């Protein structure tokens, strides 16, 4: 494309269909404890398998 560059796979909806196993870390346990950022957590789905 000439005007637009897409920089990622944009698969949020796909991840919903495959997701929800719940094996990932609770976000507050990582390094915040006073705020919440969920998007920087790792997916643990593959590790579980």
């Amino acid at each position: 494309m000439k005007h637009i560059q897409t920089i990622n796979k944009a698969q949020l909806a796909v991840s919903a269909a495959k997701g929800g196993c719940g094996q990932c870390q609770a976000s507050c346990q990582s390094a915040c404890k006073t705020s919440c950022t969920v998007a920087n957590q790792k997916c643990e789905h593959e590790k579980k398998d």
Partner: protein
Amino acid sequence: MIHTYQMNGYNIVMDVNSGGVHVVDTLTYDLLQYIAEPVPETCPPEALAALSERYAEADILECYGEILELVHAKVLFSEDTFAKYADFAVPSPIKALCLHVSHDCNLRCAYCFASTGEYGGGRKLMTAETGKKAIDFLVVNSGDRVNLEVDFFGGEPLMNWDACKEIVAYARSIEKSVNKKFRFTMTTNGMLLDDEKIDYLNKEMSNIVLSVDGRPEVHDNMRPCPNGSGSYDRIMPAFRKLAALRGDKDYYVRGTFTKHNLDFSEDVFHLYREGFDQISMEPVVAPADQPYALTEEDLPAVFAEYEKLADRILENEKNGGWFNFFHFMIDLDHGPCAIKRLRGCGCGNEYVAITPDGDIYPCHQFVGQENYRMGNVFDGTFNQELKAKFAKAHVGTKPACRNCWAKFYCSGGCNANNYFYAGDILNAYDLSCQMQKKRLECAIMMQVARYERKQSAE
């Protein structure tokens, strides 16, 4: 829904429901300001009329064609299809504990949310017996979750060192038979760290959070010892040693910035220069009448400083340096699934805090709030109604979040902050939201810059 913004010379377009991130030219950026959903198959006449003075009509139409292509590919103005996952908002197994092994502290941090460690309930240490009961409670309530996290928290957890070790030993002794994997973490101020503890923590803790605010004068101003002297010189040699011996295991040096150090990028870079490469620096959360509290009037300075920090980190990377800043960490392709993002932090549902008396609260920040006491590990009580209430606290039920572009990144914010500063766990705490959005914009801009750098290198 889309979110458009300009930063560091980039025109950035985020597609909220697909998670798509696009970098666009100025024409596209301007054109998008005239497009609303449902996106028409032909360019809106008002857009053509408004932009034709600055751009050739053929270019506008060509650009509109590209926009439509992305709309059809469902990565721009994509539909919200998440309603069908509404059943995620049900009580879930518990997978994480914040274990308050010490309601006592050997520092007197001015901004402490825990009333210098005692949480309003007196100075107490958790017995190993209570800790073991808490571990049993976690196992029994964890359902099919395999990875279970236990954070040794306080006050200062190292003030109760022997109990910490006994609790770890107990959990390890039952790990196989209950088919769980315990991941221990600790949040410490470092005052009692010595070689023996460093060695043990580096073996047993999957993550260690080391509390330090940055430059010596900034740190000592907010984190003094009970006698008023500074704590920086005491903790830093041990922190450096622990990080150096940590190997590939996770750790963070974690600081808090306040109104007194709105130039907090200096503190982040101070920690980097001191040899740390995993750094977190968070805005203080405090009542507005406190002299160190961040208020609405500080936001322009905070925003500018976040942008400056993002620039400095990119510049450092360009020069071959590297460190990870927790709040700018984002993986646009392999981040958490949308269900996790919809669920949010999970406090009170997947995550609870347990006090020295064995009382259960939704998270560490709710400790001491009698109306949020969920039960006790000794008498077996556990308020399922309250658990269900927290399960339902997510971006779909928080009115301010539903139409917010950042909802899949912050996932509804901190329920405790919402409760204490906006009156209800379902009310967004605006000051916090505004800073979170700025951090996200910076984080995504940095991903764009890195993408471009990689492209031009290839």
